[in-house]
């Protein structure tokens, strides 16, 4: 943005001051996240830069905190690192278990939220949808209602939501529920809780994509003899897919970052990365947390890049100018 030629000296000074202010705010936004990365390579158990790190002495840096992620919870961390050692990392290491739990919970929650959310968004985008505003308000509310309220409600309800141990249902749902046959302390409980938290994001992104959707395309497909199923998969789906995928990514990140519901409804078997980090920060904060944080920053950069690419693709598909 250039200054107009008629700008007075005072306006020029203000203009540069304004640019400095903006730069400072951008630094405020991004610096904390970037500072985590070099700190995670600290050779000392401190949360700040040591003298050696500042003078770029290689001895000030190490990968020991990344190593901790593999050895914490390992039954024999100091033995030779052969295939058995790595197998034990995969089976026993605390952070690896947390990562596996987070991934599976996130994946199933995302699938649930995306499938249900996309179908519902298709209905909500129809002009003839009855009570549209009210239903929309209900479906968006998991994003607005404080997570602590949701978690308290779920912890009451999931402890009661059990199947009788000797019923037919118990054999069907057994593996997904806790030992007592309840939603509390079970993987399924965490998955449905995270799915409901991800639904608003799917609804918002998919309805936004559908708002630019040209309904005459479906009519054209019908008039050319396509049945509703073919129309959906061949015409509608390819066009809204970018919106669906970015909604799914939002849902996955929501689940991957969620800790309050997990704290209230999950048992020790559902240890996730955020929960492990939360406990780590509360108890003894070690740079191992920063190593995890660095990995998560890299993951979020990858996710951001994919969402941006999808957004551009979606706008191109809908005939809008790419930005």
């Amino acid at each position, binding site marked *: 943005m250039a200054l107009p030629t008629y700008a007075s000296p005072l306006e020029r000074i203000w203009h540069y001051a304004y640019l400095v202010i903006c730069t400072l705010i*951008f630094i405020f936004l991004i610096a904390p996240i970037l500072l985590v990365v070099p700190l995670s390579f600290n050779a000392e158990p401190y949360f700040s830069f040591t003298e050696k790190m500042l003078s770029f002495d290689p001895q000030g840096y190490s990968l020991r905190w990344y190593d901790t992620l593999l050895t914490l919870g390992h039954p024999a961390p100091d033995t030779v690192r052969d295939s058995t050692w790595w197998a034990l990392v995969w089976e026993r290491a605390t952070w690896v278990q947390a990562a596996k739990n987070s991934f599976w919970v996130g994946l199933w929650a995302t699938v649930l939220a995306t499938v*249900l959310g996309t179908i*519902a968004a298709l209905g*909500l985008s129809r002009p003839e949808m009855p009570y549209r505003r009210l239903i929309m*308000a209900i479906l968006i509310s998991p994003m607005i209602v404080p997570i602590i*309220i949701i978690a308290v409600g779920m912890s009451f309800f999931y402890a009661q939501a059990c199947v009788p141990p000797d019923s037919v249902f118990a054999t069907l749902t057994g593996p997904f529920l806790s030992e007592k046959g309840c939603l509390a302390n079970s993987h399924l409980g965490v998955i449905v809780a995270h799915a*409901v938290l991800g639904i608003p994001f799917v609804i918002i992104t998919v309805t936004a994509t559908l708002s630019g959707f040209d309904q005459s395309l479906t009519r054209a497909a019908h008039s050319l003899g396509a049945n509703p199923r073919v129309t959906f998969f061949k015409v509608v789906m390819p066009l809204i897919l970018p919106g669906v995928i970015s909604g799914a990514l939002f849902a996955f990140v929501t689940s991957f970052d969620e800790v309050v519901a997990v704290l209230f409804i999950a048992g020790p078997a559902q240890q996730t990365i955020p929960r492990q*980090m939360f406990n780590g920060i509360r108890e003894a904060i070690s740079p191992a947390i920063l190593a995890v944080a660095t990995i*998560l920053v890299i993951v979020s950069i990858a996710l951001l890049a994919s969402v941006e690419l999808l957004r551009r693709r979606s706008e191109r598909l809908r005939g809008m100018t790419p930005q």
Partner: protein
Amino acid sequence: MTTATTELLKTADGRPLREALAAAQARSKRKAFWLVFPLLIFVLLTFLIPIGYMLKRSVEHDGFSKSSPTLTAWFQANSDFDHMNPPEAAFAALVTDLAQMQATKNTGMAGTRINYTVPGTISLFKKGAREAGDMQPPFKAALLTLDHAWGAPELWYAMEAAASKWTTDFYQVATDRKLTETGWQRGDDKQRIYLYLFFKTFLVSGIITVICMLLAFPVAHLLAVLPMSKSSLLMILVLLPFWTSLLVRTTAWIALLQEQGIVNDALVWMGVLSDEGRLSMMYNMTGTIIAMTHVLLPFMILPLYSVMRVIPPSYARAARSLGATSWTTFRRIYLPQTLPGIAAGSLLVFILAVGYYITPALVGGAEGQLISNLISFHMSKSNWSLAAALAAMLLAAILVLYWIYDRLVGIDRLKLG
């Protein structure tokens, strides 16, 4: 000619057109509804019913009523008894129930229920229940000799209320009212912890909203006026924090702001601070406000940006050409056009801030806790009904804000990234 116009319009198969249209519309309505139906059921089961359960918990507690059938019956028969001086029959009923509690090991639960409204009664109940089996009439004298506190009118008010499993007691406690000799009274001003914390939460959320607004405005404006190629690069700086894990960002602020952290180290190194004079910016309200501002700033920038981007620059130019100064142009022409963005962003940030839990829990220390943390505290102390009552009050506040947001901004205009 006259007969043709008065006749109803019909479809090809001879039905009246109006009827056919209504049927078709009803069909498409049903179709649209069936698409949303599975999700509605899912949300009902996993979200609405749990919240309903929580609301029920806030008015229900059977810890005392379950194990006091005799006293409950007596209260029902004598609803207008003198609380200052309950008759012998009431004490007789109480002793019967106490003896029963001792036998079924329910004393703790019953005492805890009364303890919520009259603190310090658990031990009273335990002692009373131990002795109740051996007591002889007159029971009133026997109990009062055991402990004079059995005659306290607030205890009898509490037991009368707790004799029913449905109660508003927890809302009374959550609004800082105290049970006294004459029933529920407004509590001492110094002991108004819950309402004070609600007030503090709203105040802190307001402060954070204002800071976010002040920080977001210049940035959103810059992003809106820069050419697209440059602004999308800068946009990454806004979106990356948005996509980064909340715990990562909170951890980063701990690393920056704690006493041995980067900011303090840098200030000491530069000689601004002495080593003893390190600032305490973490584990207090300052830490909560700084970290929450950082977390919520993108939620303010994004709605502001989407409004600012479509403001035509020609209005400002017209104002300038008509002789307005740059300040007047900003105040009278530009700022009013950004108001929808300011309203949307502020409401969203405020709503999110009021219910925040993780950041205050991790960086707030003792002083920087908000209402969510108190709810969690009561959950961990198993005082579920009080936690539920506080959560219900918070929910009511949030729903009002959500309703205002819907009126002013419209939920379907919520955008992400």
